[in-house]
């Protein structure tokens, strides 16, 4: 273990640590631990570190470089000895003084680490996708329900106003009877090759076995770890990359259509597009192209960038439609729908901040927007679509049993054995 001593330190404890200067007294702060805080985790964690009622007390990574980096960052904020580093997250979870964890490892670890955290009594903010198979998403959801811990999936667009507005239009009937929901996705891809074997590094520097964790063994290559070139691999990524954006956009479609407790029942791939349908006939179209303002020859062929930016969604009803994306702009019809802009409050907690909502729920024991139930159905819908695409044919799915109907091959793809000794 790296015990977090290699940092430069301020000699004076900042006043805010003591609860002065408008700060929050240590006893009222949420003690947070971070697991696998790379570039994406950094974006999330920094929003949490900006909150006065949070103390980042422990960090865990299989890479020594990141352990040192986050101990230093915490010591900049709170003073020497404020944060301890771990290589094995189970040691971090064993600390009784931690309230919650942020899990931002690669996809392969999300579900298993989250379940271990919940069983250790921690609330969990877990980056999406929260599980790389249907089975893992079910187990994670069950574990969160049984333990009563808070789970916020990292599908932060549930707490972004333009997306909330579009969902409001759909859910409030302003678009009329909904008939089609559109979710942007990456161009789908599954990789199976192994990069050339390289000598395994000292586990104190990079712990390859722990990096693999519940994923199948393969020989070490630093590109997986250092360059984060694990995306798209069947063993490490979720659902043929469909979750990369689908976890957000399918989630928004599920929300818009009031489908948080169910999934589509039919999925049919056609090239890079997957057409799905809910039991009530509403269609869900997952597609990488064809968005308003998206050039026919995009600079980036992997995902959509249209007039509303990246990650667009579109909801269509018989009285109107709305399309929005990451740049916050909203395209809609009829124009009168724009007058609805301020007339909505989707949830009681602050809708502007996904992480803030998580921290509030850690305190209140309330239910965040991207809770385990929401995560379960959104993620399963994405997985079912990805399985249809991988099989190259139509599949039917029973949202009640969460099984494919009369389809042995598809059902076999619902789960994958977790590598020993990990238990899901």
């Amino acid at each position, binding site marked *: 273990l790296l015990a977090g001593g290699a940092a430069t330190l301020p000699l004076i404890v900042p006043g805010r640590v003591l609860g002065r200067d408008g700060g929050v007294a240590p006893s009222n702060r949420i003690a947070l631990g971070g697991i696998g805080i790379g570039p994406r985790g950094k974006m999330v964690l920094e929003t949490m570190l900006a909150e006065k009622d949070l103390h980042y007390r422990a960090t865990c990574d299989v890479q020594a470089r990141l352990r040192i980096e986050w101990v230093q960052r915490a010591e900049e904020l709170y003073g020497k000895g404020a944060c301890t580093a771990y290589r094995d997250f189970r040691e971090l979870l064993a600390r009784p003084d931690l309230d919650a964890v942020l899990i931002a490892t690669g996809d392969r670890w999300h579900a298993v680490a989250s379940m271990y955290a919940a069983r250790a009594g921690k609330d969990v903010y877990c980056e999406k996708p929260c599980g790389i198979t249907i089975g893992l998403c079910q187990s994670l959801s069950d574990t969160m329900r049984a333990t*009563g811990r808070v789970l916020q999936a990292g599908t932060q667009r549930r707490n972004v106003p333009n997306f909330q507005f579009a969902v409001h239009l759909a859910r409030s009937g302003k678009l009329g009877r909904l008939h089609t929901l559109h979710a942007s996705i990456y161009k789908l891809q599954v990789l199976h090759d192994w990069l050339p074997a390289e000598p395994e590094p000292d586990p104190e520097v990079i712990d390859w076995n722990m990096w693999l964790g519940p994923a199948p063994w393969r020989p070490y290559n630093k590109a997986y770890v250092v360059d984060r070139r694990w995306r798209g691999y069947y063993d490490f990524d979720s659902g043929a990359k469909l979750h990369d954006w689908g976890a957000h956009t399918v989630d928004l479609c599920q929300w818009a259509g009031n489908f948080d407790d169910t999934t589509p029942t039919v999925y049919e791939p056609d090239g890079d597009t997957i057409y799905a349908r809910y039991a009530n006939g509403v269609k869900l179209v997952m597609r990488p192209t064809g968005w308003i303002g998206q050039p026919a020859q995009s600079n980036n062929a992997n995902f959509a960038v249209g007039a509303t930016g990246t990650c667009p969604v579109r909801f269509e009803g018989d009285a109107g439609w709305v399309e929005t994306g990451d740049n916050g702009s909203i395209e809609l019809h009829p124009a009168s729908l724009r007058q609805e802009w*301020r007339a909505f409050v989707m949830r009681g907690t602050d809708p502007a901040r996904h992480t803030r909502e998580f921290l509030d729920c850690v305190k209140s024991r309330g239910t965040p927007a991207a809770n385990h139930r929401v995560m379960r159905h959104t993620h399963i819908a994405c997985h079912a679509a990805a399985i249809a695409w991988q099989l190259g044919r139509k599949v039917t799915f029973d949202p009640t049993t969460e099984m494919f109907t009369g389809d042995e091959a598809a059902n076999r793809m619902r789960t994958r054995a977790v590598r020993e000794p990990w238990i899901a």
Partner: protein
Amino acid sequence: MTKSLLVGFALGVAAVFAAGDAVKTRELLAQLKPEAPLAERARACQQLAIVGTSEAVPALAELLSDTHLGHYAREALEAMALPEADAALRTALGRLQGVQLVGAINSLGVRGDAAAVPALVKLADGAEASAASAALVALARIGTQAALDKVQTALSDGRRDAAADAVVTAADRLLARGQTAEAARLFEAVRASGATGQARLSAIRGVILARGASGVPLLLENLRSPDAALHDLALRAMRELAGADATAALVAELPRVSPALQPQVLAALVDRGGAGVLAAVEGQATSSNAAMRHAALDALGRIGAPSSVPLLLRALAEEGDAAATARRSLVQLTAPGTDAALLRALGAASADTQLKLVAVLGDRGAATAASELLRLAREPRAEIRRAALRALAGAAGPGELPALIRLALEQRDDAERTLADRAIHAAAMKILEPERRVDPLLTALRQAPSPSDRVALLRPLGAVVRALGGSAAAAAAVRAAAQSSDATEREAAVKCLADWPDASPAVDLMALVRASVEPVRNLAFAGAVRMAANVAAGRDRTPLDALALLTEANALVASDAERMMVVSALGSLRRIESLGMLEPYLQLDAVKTEAALAVVQIAPALLGGANAMAVRSTLEKIAATERDPDVRARAADLLRPGAAPKKAGKKKQ
């Protein structure tokens, strides 16, 4: 191999197989031979997981003890809905050791193999701790009576904590299926076992929920506990335990819990909803407990009724946190009649409260308040005037535009004029048809009696045009103003054109560059070059010959600042002519680095063409002489064979 094996494979066997595909299984078994590369054998296992028949089971079972392939083989066996796979995993329990034994136990648990219970019971009693723990988890997952009996027995021996987790998981599944009596029995067993940590908390929660209405006393007992973990679980259970009787009991409990916990209990009641909750919340809106009052005032924004408005108004009239919370809630409140109640309150409010009420009406977008806000915007008191102008941006609609425009033209104070402009912009943007949004301002512009009025109108007009992305009708009016005999009007119009959101005025601006003097000439120059740069970069699709415009601008530059503008724009124009214009600037100290950067930006598009030699020659000069190390390095990179950087989108999460 970067293509999907699964896709290619599945497309080849499009039929739905009941228990795998025999032909493909034999092909894959051939790939499992020891002489095959490890990666190929691993992939074969993963494909057998999807299509393998019982014929594959023996070979997979043989691999279970393999250091590297054992897990792959188990991945296949765990997935196969075949009794042979269960049998193979059960048999393997006798010969596997260490983590591989744990793996096989886990797989049997995932498969719910009831026939494995006797073997797992034996393993649960074994000396090897990790296998024993895994066996308890697997038994709980299998969930037969015999399996659960064993796990319950373990609650009372040295493996209590491992067993407690397993029993909780099993009990919660029963609870989710509605088997509440059985679930309650298991949860009670964990609770009685003295289990600690999360398992104990999960068990208490489970007992409360499984008991239904009878769980209320236990919920209340934990809510009253000084132990934070216990009252936290009770707060969670408050949101989960169904029933009107439970709601009534929890509402009644509110005043009895500790003052420190009351706000959280109130929040849980609000999440829970139901009869009596609103009254309880309103009852706390005047609480002397500041945190409680804050929670109540905050909750009223979500669930408040008309009866809540006076309570919120009372808090709004105060100072400090309560007023701020009440203000937020009044903005959120959707109860009918709220706007009217706020307007009534406005007349009788103190000066300070009036300011707050005006802000609330604005943030609510209270259209019915617009006429009153217009009146207040002419009040003698500056504070209320400004508050009203701010609020009009939210409350005023298209119908108020003529009045707002008159108001703006009356303003003599810069700050208030800006506020009035913002209100005009906001109201204009509420016109449903985008092409009509400039109309009220254009009408006013035509009717304006003086150049100073027209100058005042050009500011909000420009803002609306920028929000719209352009407007032909507005462009014509502003071009006319740019020909005014009044110098201030001319300057305001050219400034408006120079900030135009598309390049449609670019040619007119260049004409003004040729025909005018400062300040009009400089404004026009900057605007025209910016527009050409946007067109060259593909950000603006307005038809414009950017090369011709920049060539002319380059000939008319009058200062280093203008040279910098032109050089920067040429960095977006991927034409060999750009290189010709940039080369002289590589020698000019004031702009040489910017020019080098521009060359580096356009070079990748030119290196593959007929002028590659000339481009390389310029890059070599930059790589050898440029002061900025980054620009120098980029030039050197481009000179490496095949090293032109690819353009890539930025990945988001």
